[in-house]
């Protein structure tokens, strides 16, 4: 079950024409798919479209009622390949994943899809993980569209425009026999807004119809000679068709006065940012009515040459605002004007930085610089001589505020794995450690500081492939999450290591979910999932690949065992990969699952145990070695009211979930005896009470006996 439930929200997907739909961007997109008669949807989770997958999963029944097939794909490549259903059949299909990483994975299937072309509308919804909050390398999706001839939509970031883009996308795809990519940025996905709904439409042809009436057209199969014909067809037929469709249906929009000395062309997704910049300069009002011509590209590939030429006509200069590097749109527009011999000047990555997110400040500065130069007479006083308050310089504050990198949650079962690894490195010296994508990548931050590279999802062990030298005195260690394992790690990483007889150690971090993306189920999840087949052990798959040295640890919190197993893996004379599968449930999901059950059991009067950990403040000496091996958010510091103490002592707050990691680490690393585990017995039985009273009376006797022979101080810290 996913971390966030949309069970309530998806009911709104059923609303009919004329009603107002209120919700997040991703919900609006789902509704738009239903309004446009989609026949099947698929995808792979990842920010910022994880929730789109969660919405679709929670909406399965609604989809099924309409004859729409939903699939949680094994990877982005699988998702893209799913669109093959639209090649021969007039079925509308949509897939979604995170870009650019997902698009990279999907590119093989996307290129094949785009070569043969489609009959039914094929929509690829990419969640653009770019700029603040992103967790991946910063690249543009634009290149994929250009290289494969997939049309790229980048609608204005408001719900009505985004919803319209879904319909436009399907229609454009069908009109041009080409797949269409719909780009959604992080903030649009999480944008809360509203739009007027239309009636949902059941697919004209369902996947069931297609299965029962199979079709085949050799001209659509990517194999010579058809593939050479596809290449020609893309530029002679499909591209012109796309340009015609975009022009005729006015997919791009123009705002402001029709004429002007200068004008702006921007990506649809940045419309709001541009308007905000103009508003701040006094060149647009609250509703976006602006004082200079603005051409908004809701389709950023392909561009419509005559639209651009028309816009450039009678202008001295045009500013092109696009995010990221390379400046494909600017280059394209320059080429169009150059070819036509137009004299209009183009500015782009000049007033604007070559790379990076177009933040509010960059937008304001870029517009100011450009307009001051190109059209100073347009500028109100505030804009010509900006008198903005200088940003305060606070060197002391800068030096004081600590960074706050993301880290493992309270009680995370991955923390003890890295504590054990850190301890092994202390014992045996540093190793080359390859990391992967997932929560476990937080190991690269303090306090663990473990991991040298990350080369892509499921590619942790693959990225240690070169370190395969039988004569070396040390082995590599690589990490792989259960999500990455099923995504492609089984073959790319495990299979590769077996085949090449790589002696390295591979640790598979199995937390029962695709946890980093929001707790979606995967093949090895232990949950019952009514529509998916789960509970397929990773160990069997690894052994099936031919790995011989495989160890399964079912409680990662056993730091000592983890440490011993890792040591054995690093020292055993056996050749081939040493695979350790470290399994414990993601604590975030476990708590979400168990807390309500526990609460209910307690209120039903059942005997339950509530476990928390604590630190004896008078035993703790304030060295914080435990924190350097844990980093648990609930393990913090407190100052003692004792004039004899200098340093704050460790302290566990009430958010502790009782995972036991701190105690286990203190034991395994032989730190100190400050940690204790306190199990509160809820709804104790009569026998519990009897025993407890008896024990306590004996303990009190012993305490009194000792106290009678010494001085007992009270009201003091020591």
């Amino acid at each position, binding site marked *: 079950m996913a971390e966030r439930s949309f069970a309530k929200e998806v009911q709104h997907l059923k609303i009919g024409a004329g009603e107002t739909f209120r919700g997040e961007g991703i919900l609006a997109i789902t509704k738009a798919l239903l309004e446009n008669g989609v026949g099947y949807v698929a995808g792979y989770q990842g920010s910022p479209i994880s929730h789109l997958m969660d919405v679709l999963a929670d909406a399965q029944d609604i989809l099924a009622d309409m004859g729409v097939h939903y699939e949680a794909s094994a990877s982005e490549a699988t998702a893209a390949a799913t669109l093959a259903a639209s090649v021969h059949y007039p079925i509308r299909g949509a897939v979604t994943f995170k870009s650019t990483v997902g698009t990279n994975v999907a590119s093989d299937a996307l290129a094949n899809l785009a070569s043969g072309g489609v009959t039914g509308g094929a929509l690829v919804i990419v969640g653009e993980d770019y700029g603040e909050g992103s967790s991946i390398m910063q690249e543009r999706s634009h290149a994929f569209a250009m290289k494969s001839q997939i049309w790229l939509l980048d609608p204005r970031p408001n719900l009505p425009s985004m919803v319209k883009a879904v319909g436009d996308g399907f229609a454009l795809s069908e009109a041009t026999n080409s797949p269409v990519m719909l780009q959604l940025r992080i903030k649009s996905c999480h944008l809360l807004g509203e739009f007027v709904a239309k009636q949902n439409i059941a697919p004209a042809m369902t996947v069931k119809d297609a299965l029962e009436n199979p079709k085949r057209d050799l001209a659509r199969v990517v194999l010579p000679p058809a593939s050479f014909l596809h290449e020609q067809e893309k530029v002679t037929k499909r591209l012109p068709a796309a340009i015609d469709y975009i022009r005729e249906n006015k997919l791009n929009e123009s705002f402001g006065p029709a004429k002007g000395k200068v004008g702006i062309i921007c990506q649809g997704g940045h419309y709001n940012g541009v308007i905000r910049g103009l508003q701040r300069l006094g060149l647009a009002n609250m509703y976006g009515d602006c004082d200079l011509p603005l051409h908004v590209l809701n389709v950023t590939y392909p561009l419509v040459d005559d639209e651009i030429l028309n816009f450039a006509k009678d202008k001295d200069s045009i500013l092109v605002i696009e995010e990221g590097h390379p400046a494909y749109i600017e280059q394209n527009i320059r080429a169009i004007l150059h070819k036509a011999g137009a004299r209009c000047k183009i500015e782009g990555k000049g007033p604007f930085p070559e790379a990076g997110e177009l933040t509010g400040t960059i937008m304001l500065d870029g517009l100011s610089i450009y307009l001051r130069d190109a059209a100073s007479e347009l500028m109100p006083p505030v804009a010509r001589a900006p008198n903005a308050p200088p940003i305060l310089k606070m060197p002391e504050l800068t030096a004081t505020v600590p960074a706050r990198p993301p880290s493992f949650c309270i009680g995370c079962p991955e923390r003890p794995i890295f504590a054990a690894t850190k301890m092994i490195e202390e014992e045996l010296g540093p190793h080359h450690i390859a990391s992967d994508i997932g929560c476990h990548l937080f190991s690269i931050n303090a306090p663990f500081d473990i991991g040298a590279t990350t080369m892509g999802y499921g590619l942790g062990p693959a990225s240690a492939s070169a370190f395969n030298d039988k004569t070396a005195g040390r082995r590599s260690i690589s990490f792989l999450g259960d999500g990455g394992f099923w995504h492609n790690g089984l073959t790319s990483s495990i299979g590769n290591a077996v085949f090449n007889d790589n002696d390295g150690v591979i640790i598979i971090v199995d937390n029962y979910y695709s946890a980093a993306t929001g707790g979606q189920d995967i093949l090895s999840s232990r949950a019952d999932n009514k529509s998916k087949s789960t509970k397929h052990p990773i160990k069997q798959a690894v052994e099936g690949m031919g790995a011989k040295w495989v160890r399964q640890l079912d409680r990662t919190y056993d730091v000592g065992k983890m440490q011993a197993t890792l040591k054995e893996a690093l020292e055993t004379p056996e050749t081939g990969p040493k695979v350790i599968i470290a399994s414990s449930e993601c604590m975030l999901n476990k708590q979400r699952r168990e807390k309500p059950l526990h609460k209910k059991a307690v209120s039903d009067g059942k005997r339950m145990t509530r476990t928390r950990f604590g630190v004896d403040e008078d035993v703790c000496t304030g060295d914080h070695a435990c*924190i350097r091996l844990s980093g648990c958010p609930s393990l913090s510091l407190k100052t003692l009211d004792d004039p004899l103490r200098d340093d704050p002592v460790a302290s566990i707050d009430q958010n502790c979930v009782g995972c036991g990691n701190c105690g286990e680490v203190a034991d395994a690393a032989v730190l100190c005896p400050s940690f204790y585990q306190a199990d509160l017995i809820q709804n104790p039985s009569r026998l519990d009470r009897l025993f407890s009273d008896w024990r306590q009376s004996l303990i009190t006797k012993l305490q009194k006996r000792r106290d009678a022979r010494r001085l007992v101080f009270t009201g003091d810290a020591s």
Partner: protein
Amino acid sequence: MNAHTLSKDASAEIIKLAVLAVGGQGGGVLANWIAQLANRGGYAVQMTSVAGVAQRTGATIYYVEMAPKTERLPVFALSPAPGDLDILIAAELMEAGRAVLRGFVTPHRTTLIASSHRILAISEKEVPGDGRAQSTLVEEEITSAALRCVCFDMETLAVEAGSMISASLFGGLARSKALPFEMTQFEEVIAASGRGAQQSLAAFHAALTYDSAQIDDTPSQKSAPTVDGPEILLKGWSDLCTQIEGFPNDARLIIQAGLTKVIDYQDIEYGKTYLGHLVAYKYTDANLTKVAAKYIANAMCYDDILRVADLKTRASRQTRLRSEQDIPEGDIVQITEYFHPRAQEICGTLPAGLGAWIESRPRAFAALDRVTNKGRRIRTDGIIGFGLLWAVSALKPYRRKFLRHRFETAHLSGLLEHAHKAALTDTSLAIEILQCQRLIKGYSDTHTRGHSKFGKVIAALDVLSGRPDAADWVRRLRSAALEDEKGDVLDGALATVHSFAS
């Protein structure tokens, strides 16, 4: 600043608000409430967030824009811009500091609502000394950076009301009057939020009506420790207390604390030894007396198995544990202690001769280690576990005969010797030397590492003694030693010191 030119900013009529929180604090709940509030108040509103699902404990940001509803929809921006925010809500003090550094708080327009409580960052927690950021500095800086600042501990108010910080921050927002909505509208939003609405309302009102004047900020005047015990021991105690009178006024409190600590640790006799050590500092600089009183007590009360066993079996410990863990008197709690004794600790708790004999024979020592060196979980709510620790604590009268005591006594003598020598010519150096006892803490490897750092700093005295800046250097070395675990910073500083000699 010219008000006329500012009015040209067409987005000035839009209220711009950002929430900065630490992942897991419920920043999303708060942002949703604000959006609903705007809706109820007849405003068009847009909310966005950058709460990437992978950001579990990192900094997260939510952004809300609103403007009075008209027939046309305003064009709202999707992310906050520096210098362009009316309201900034920070759910933690350093996040408020971060917001200021990012330019999200500006003196001419931003109302800042911040909770002054701390969620320590890992970089603050992991240093061996005290790496915590200075809260007072941040509070002052953020207050000066904002137009108005509502800043107090809203986390505690929320916890006390059984709710989340989102509710008390919402109260802080209402209190600031920075939004044009009625108090009842705020309350309606919470009331409509369903589960936990009652507690949320309580937290909301707590923040709304919070009065800093009513909060007693002065540190509680500690009541003098009361002491109880057999007549003869009490007599010994009062005799020793009388001896304290002979010390400078300034130092008496800390000597009292030190004396209490060593007697609590061992016995009256030990208290006499303690005061005996202090005699040498009776007529010195008062600061030196105080420092000596503190660190001699700490050195005498080294952490051994006996002490841990004693502390873990006290009645006062049971009381403290129950209050820390929210376990009412009468409820049953099972307590498991995490112990991991090694042969070193066992030898230390043997008669000095025997302990040293084993330690000098590697095979015997290894054999002992094999038997003892493993994790042990001891249930101190049970008779056997408690009895075991109780019995160990009963060895206290023999402590002075143990190997560990021999070692620690030698250490203390060394420390005192260095301090005495320095005190003859350089009082401040003596003070700094005594403070180096702070480096020794922890158990097992941590303790060994502490000793090694201590040894390195003391060894540097060979080069430093006699220099006018010797005290300063020892202080610097000591801070360096507390900065990281392995002592790399210390080694760097020592390299500089040793360059003096060449």
